């Protein structure tokens, strides 16, 4: 397997599949479901989250991710399945522990800062509920405000803060009680683009500093990719794929995931003897090293525009430099320049297949130009 792209995330090698199976998960959702009347919001969801892991629930609006988070938090009771925390059932269709007894803290989309309390009072509230003595409260509040870089604003009221500062207060208020699980519901959607980038780094930094198990709900792919150890992609109430960000990008298992994470080309193919036949070219089976020998019949492959490269037909020699890479003649149909990259639509010389290709700014081609595409079968992922 050494020659294929490395898909395990650099960030969490200790959380490889073996490690997760061995340890007691902090949180486990088993066959979890919730319906509102006839409408099924979440269906047969299975998910295990290790201690200290950062997981995102990612999906389009209405996919059930917020419902799932609110079930974990205890604001919605499941109608099927169970939620376990440290192997203890905390919610099922029959019984549910109230939110205040779950040892989890949620950060809301609106931040939900109490407008009648100062920043320091907001942060201190959870500690007061835990009957921490006053000296310890003021020390921990001060430390926490320092950690979120708001040391001087303890006396302000939430209305006197900017959106980013309010977000930091919400983080401080949640983290200061050292929750077993931190839940974040679209925490960055009310911020402008620059702040959003800053805060998603901040959220990851605080997670690494305090090592809380964290679940983030978002519809923003970049937010999930940049912060998470693993991402659960949800669609129409179901879990589509649970994987590291890189694995989701490189090896999407379904059409939905391939489309939702970045952009892609879909190529239909059928197995014919020792060949996999595409529209316009074919590849021998043994070149799909990663797939083994178990695949057969008709299938669809996802091939990222970034995984294809273009060469001038003259420059390209008869044989590719890398034995594994295929050279396929094609014609450039459309060109669009986006500043950071070129985007080309090319048509293969044989057949009707069109492909989208992304190139560096220096790689300029004209519409109508005849070119050679370099395609690496190891980067083609079959999708359901």
């Amino acid at each position, binding site marked *: 397997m050494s020659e294929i792209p490395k898909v395990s995330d650099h960030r969490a090698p200790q959380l490889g599949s073996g490690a997760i199976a061995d340890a007691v998960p902090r949180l486990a959702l088993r066959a979890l479901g919730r319906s509102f009347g006839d409408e099924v919001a979440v269906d047969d969801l299975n998910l295990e989250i290790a201690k200290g892991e950062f997981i995102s629930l990612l999906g389009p609006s209405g996919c059930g991710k917020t419902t799932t988070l609110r079930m974990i938090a205890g604001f919605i009771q499941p109608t099927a399945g169970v939620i376990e925390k440290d192997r203890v059932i905390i919610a099922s269709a029959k019984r549910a522990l109230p939110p205040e007894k779950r040892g989890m803290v949620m950060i809301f989309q609106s931040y*939900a800062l109490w407008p009648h309390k100062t920043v320091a009072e907001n942060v201190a509230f959870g500690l007061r509920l835990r009957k921490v003595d006053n000296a310890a409260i003021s020390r921990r509040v001060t430390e926490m405000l320092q950690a979120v870089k708001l040391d001087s604003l303890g006396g302000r009221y939430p209305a006197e803060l900017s959106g980013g500062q309010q977000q930091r207060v919400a983080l401080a208020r949640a983290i200061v009680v050292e929750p077993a699980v931190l839940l974040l519901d679209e925490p960055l959607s009310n911020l402008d683009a620059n702040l959003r980038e800053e805060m998603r780094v901040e959220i990851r930094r605080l997670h690494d500093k305090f090592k809380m198990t964290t679940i983030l709900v978002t519809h923003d792919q970049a937010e999930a990719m940049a912060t998470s150890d693993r991402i659960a992609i949800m669609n129409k109430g179901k879990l589509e794929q649970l994987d590291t960000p890189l694995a989701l990008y490189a090896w999407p298992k379904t059409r939905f995931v391939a489309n939702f994470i970045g952009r892609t080309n879909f190529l239909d193919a059928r197995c014919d003897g020792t060949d996999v036949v595409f529209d316009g070219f074919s590849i021998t089976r043994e070149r799909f090293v990663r797939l083994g020998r178990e695949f057969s019949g008709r299938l669809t492959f996802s091939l990222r525009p970034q995984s294809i490269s273009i060469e001038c037909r003259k420059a390209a020699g008869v044989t590719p430099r890398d034995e594994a890479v295929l050279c396929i003649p094609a014609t450039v149909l459309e060109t669009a320049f986006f500043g950071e990259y070129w985007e080309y639509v090319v048509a293969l010389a044989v057949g009707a297949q069109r492909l989208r290709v992304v190139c560096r700014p220096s790689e300029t081609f004209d519409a109508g130009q005849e070119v050679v595409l370099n395609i690496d079968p190891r980067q083609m992922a079959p999708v359901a």
Partner: protein
Amino acid sequence: MTIFQIPFRHSGSGIKGATGSGLATGLVWASVVAALAFIVVYPIVKLIVFSFTARTGATFDNYFYAFGRVRYLEALWNSLLYGAATTLVATLLALPLAWGFARTKMPGKTLIRAGLLGTFVIPSYLGAVAWILLAGPNAGWINRAWMFLSGAENGLFNIYSFGGLVFVSALYAIPYIFVYVSDGLSAVSSEMEDAARMLGAGTIGVAVKITLPLVAPAIFNGCLIVFLDTIALFGTPAVLGLPAHFNVAAVQLLEFFEYPVRAEAAAAYSLPLIAITCLALWLQRVLRGRRSYESVTGRTSAHVGAASPAVEWILFAYAMLILTLAVVLPVACLAKAAFSVAWGRPLTLANLTITNFSELLSSTDAQRGIGNSLAIAALAATNAVALGICTAYAVARRVFPMSSVFGPISLGTLAIPGITLGIGFYSAFSTAPFRLYGTITIIVLAFSARFLPIAYGSCVSGLAAIGTQLEEAVRSLGGSQLTSVRHVIVPLLRKHLLSAWILVFILAIRELSVVVFLAGPGSRTISMLLLDYSEGGNLELTAALGLVLLAITLIVVIAGQALLGRDLLSPADKS
């Protein structure tokens, strides 16, 4: 304008917590259910049962008796006539004020606003007493001035007449219409008016053809409140109507309690008033349901300057005239009478005295009356607000499966005129096992029920503005539902609760319609004493006690405004 606005429909928001039970929580909700059953449901049910009760068992006799005489039926008809006429006059008087306030740069708006607040805090029966001093036949100051100036034999006005009764009642109903209509006007997007103007309509054309239809629902709501309030009015018709032999249902009801007491007949007689109220509330729903004025709540803009300076000054003069008639002249007259030996004599040193006040303060009746009124108003306001926040919270947050029924129950007494409610409490609590007749307790309970809709409405509108996530944040940090109510809801609703408390206090301390059926010798209130004194012809003492009542009210209003940072008649959310 949240204080008079009682929401009849509201959508519950948020998804309720999965569970949130605890012993303390359970006790709170159990006592809320018990309180609603005890002071709202039970008296109404008992009133209906009572109306079919005789010594011998169930009977229709009470109805035959109550509706068996022309005089009784005539009183009912008179009430409708009185209610309709008062509503019409009050609306006509209030509309120019509201329009001028919302749409022009008329001068003296602060003064007019204060004057309207003054009009609001003067109970109409006290205004009626003052207008006896002003326009009583022959002896009234205005009539005497007229006779002196013109040499006429008779006075210009006779306040003891249907016209006089309607005029005085309408004057003190103006603030209600004003609040509704000016609120409605500020909700109408001025772009609609600008659109009409672009098409060539003039100021008056726009006001009549565009603005008026758009605020029609607000006008109707104001009219409804005034009409329902007027047909249940007891004091003013008793003071001004009876001498003119103009009998109304409210006064007739009290007659049933004179010897021989026919309380069951009174119960039967009071039920048509509930029917009329329900009919009016139903009509309001139908009218509102057919036309959608949702677009009215568009962008509110401070659109002023629709009229020329001349029109603005005319409006100002008009406002001053109204305030003179409603506040300045009556209060001046009461003050003069309160410090006079005899009210009819001119203001000379010989006629000047403070004996009225010293007599008042040394009278055990008056002392006890003032004490009773203060205690009743404070307790009733506290009860109503406490119950109101509980029921509003239960409805808004769907605390338990059936909690939405709290809404209609909390608003239920809105459909019960004060006099009817008084008889309901009489029938429910005067007999064993309660035997509360003549106690302060029964009056406090009745007032708590009567003013619950105000407290509930205020809390509902306040709660609607508080996002559920603020509470969920408490829950998620480890606090119970009670903790979140204590630390988040109550502090954030502080101003709503306070303004509701003050409003209930003001309305309770002058309330008369309920008290007349429930007060005994030991539980008489300022309002009842005022009626007694004026019926006994001691107008100087009446005036002095009236000033005391106004002073108490004014202190509460001013203290409240200082705490709230705004005046009582202005919208809470704009503070």
